[in-house]
């Protein structure tokens, strides 16, 4: 199949990220369509952030990356030294992290930090640059941006810092926004305000968005598409509404059963048996096999193919129908 760059901004086929002989992301295929929000959900250690880092080009040098195809609108992302790629980073791909206070400098005013990025990527100077900084802050709902641009991160709340981070990420009109647990640690009311803002910007600018979260209720509310990851493998790909009404992979069902937001009572809350497998050891072909009540002998020998119609694809030999 040839890449479809009119629909998708990013296409990954059989992406594998390894540390030595250990594949921590195992032959993952993922498309990020324009104007849509794709959520990657799973327990910590499932490889979600590594995929985000590989797309953003900030993968640790200790890791090796292989892919049958890994492209951003025609530019090859698997060659980190390629000049085409370097041009993408910062200007076309932006990332916001879990802890905005750690991602921003504590010793420079927030306006200066946004100004640095705009000057570097859009080449603005002087009054034009100042105006762009104030506009960027205003666009993320910061009240009184003229005064606030002189603040340090220590003078701002966690929610405000995340707004600054989003302003920084959006300042160069990127085409892809990666949001890695953007609201973990924030209050629910702040979380709702931040994510409403992200969604509004994604729709208005027709950007692609990769939302990484462990919170299924959050993914359900904000994402159009959901990819469920377990131990480095994508086990289910579904439209957001379908995933919750008819989950097909046993792991997806287990994840829903363990979520407080989905349970009707404490008795209905079912922890997932076992824990994520040690990826350094001998792994069954389907990495969920040891935790799965529906596992068959072949699950250990042959990796399940991802099958099903678009919007309802599952990688399981014995899916729930």
């Amino acid at each position, binding site marked *: 199949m040839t890449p479809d760059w009119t629909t998708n901004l990013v296409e990954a086929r059989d992406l594998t990220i390894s540390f030595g002989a250990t594949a921590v992301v195992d032959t993952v295929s993922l498309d990020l369509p324009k104007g849509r929000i794709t959520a990657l959900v799973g327990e910590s250690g499932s490889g979600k952030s590594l995929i985000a880092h590989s797309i953003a080009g900030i993968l640790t040098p200790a890791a090796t990356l292989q892919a049958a195809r890994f492209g951003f609108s025609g530019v090859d992302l698997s060659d980190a030294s390629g000049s085409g790629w370097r041009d993408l980073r910062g200007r076309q791909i932006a990332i916001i992290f879990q802890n905005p206070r750690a991602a921003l400098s504590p010793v420079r005013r927030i306006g200066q930090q946004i100004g640095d990025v705009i000057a570097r990527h859009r080449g603005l100077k002087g009054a034009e640059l100042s105006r762009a900084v104030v506009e960027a802050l205003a666009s993320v709902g910061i009240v009184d941006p003229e005064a606030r641009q002189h603040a340090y991160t220590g003078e701002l709340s966690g929610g405000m810092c995340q707004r600054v981070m989003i302003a920084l990420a959006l300042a160069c009109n990127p085409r892809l926004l990666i949001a890695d647990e953007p609201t973990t640690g924030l209050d*629910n009311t*702040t*979380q*709702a*305000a*931040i994510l409403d803002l992200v969604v509004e910007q994604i729709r208005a600018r027709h950007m692609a968005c990769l939302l990484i979260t462990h919170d299924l209720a959050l993914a359900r509310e904000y994402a159009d598409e959901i990819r469920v990851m377990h131990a480095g493998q994508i086990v289910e790909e579904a439209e957001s509404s379908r995933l919750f009404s008819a989950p097909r992979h046993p792991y997806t069902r287990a994840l829903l059963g*363990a*979520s407080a937001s989905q349970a009707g009572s*404490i008795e209905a*809350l079912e922890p997932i048996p076992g824990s994520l497998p040690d990826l350094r050891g001998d792994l069954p072909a389907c990495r969920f096999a040891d935790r799965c009540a529906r596992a068959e002998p072949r699950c250990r020998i042959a990796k399940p193919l991802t099958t099903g119609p678009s919007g309802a694809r599952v990688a399981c030999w014995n899916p729930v129908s």
Partner: protein
Amino acid sequence: MKLVELSGVTRSFASGRRARVLAVDNVSFSINRGESVGLVGESGSGKSTLSRLICGLTPAEDGEIRLNGKPITAPSRAVQMVFQSADEALNPAFTIARNIAVGLGLSNAGALPEVRSVAAKVGLPPELLPRLPHQLSGGQQARAGIARALIAQPELLLLDEPTAALDVSVQALVLRLIDRLRTETGCATLLVSHDLDVVRLMCTRVLVMYRGRIVEAGPVNQIIEAPRHPYTRLLVSATPGRNQGDRMTLPSTAPHADTEACHFRDRCPMATDICAQSRPKLDDMAPGHAVACHHSSSAAPQISGSGAC
């Protein structure tokens, strides 16, 4: 039968050179024996200060806290706390056994039989007892933190965001464990959380706190399904999956120090002159359901617009 009773409890802290922040402002409520109560509110609302007051870790400036009818002035063995980040709450230089024994006020592991039995109760395998906290997983550390509290055989367990840092599956395990222990020991629980879904599963009654005051209190289902205070409505609508298209995103503003006003009035779409002039009382709307709002009998407002946070 009342286990803990707070009346007019107040505590403030210095903030900067002259200002003081009223963290807990004239709060009164009670917890019955064996009851499971939730305490919700955003960061800075005074939830943690309130639990430290009940625990005797922070003295009150005004008002009184009674445990079984007697005033609490110092930490009591009958009230135990499970802290938010288990890894920080355990002494990194102590073995797990010694950390658990600390709950009895001992600094040696002479209490080993008790330690072993409480470890079994929380599902901590005995081979983990000689290990150090950093050698345990997050879920195991959480269990050790609960064991440390439980060994003192408390009548009230204060749980400060016990699962906020845990993965979904481990969270489910720990919540089930806490629920089982509550039933087995008959110990009352006060669960501090900003996750309404966790509170819905774990508690029968919930207290909603805003800027140091309790603004609504009542049965958990009533509060989540039909919140009466505008702030509670904001909190419920901001919970993922509970947005009915009527999400309230109201600006947050600087805290007020004035006691003779409603603290929520600047964010409140229903605010009128009276809200700036008098403090709303926590009045019963229905049996067991109290609301502190001058306009609590008015219909739910439609709110839109974005704001700062």
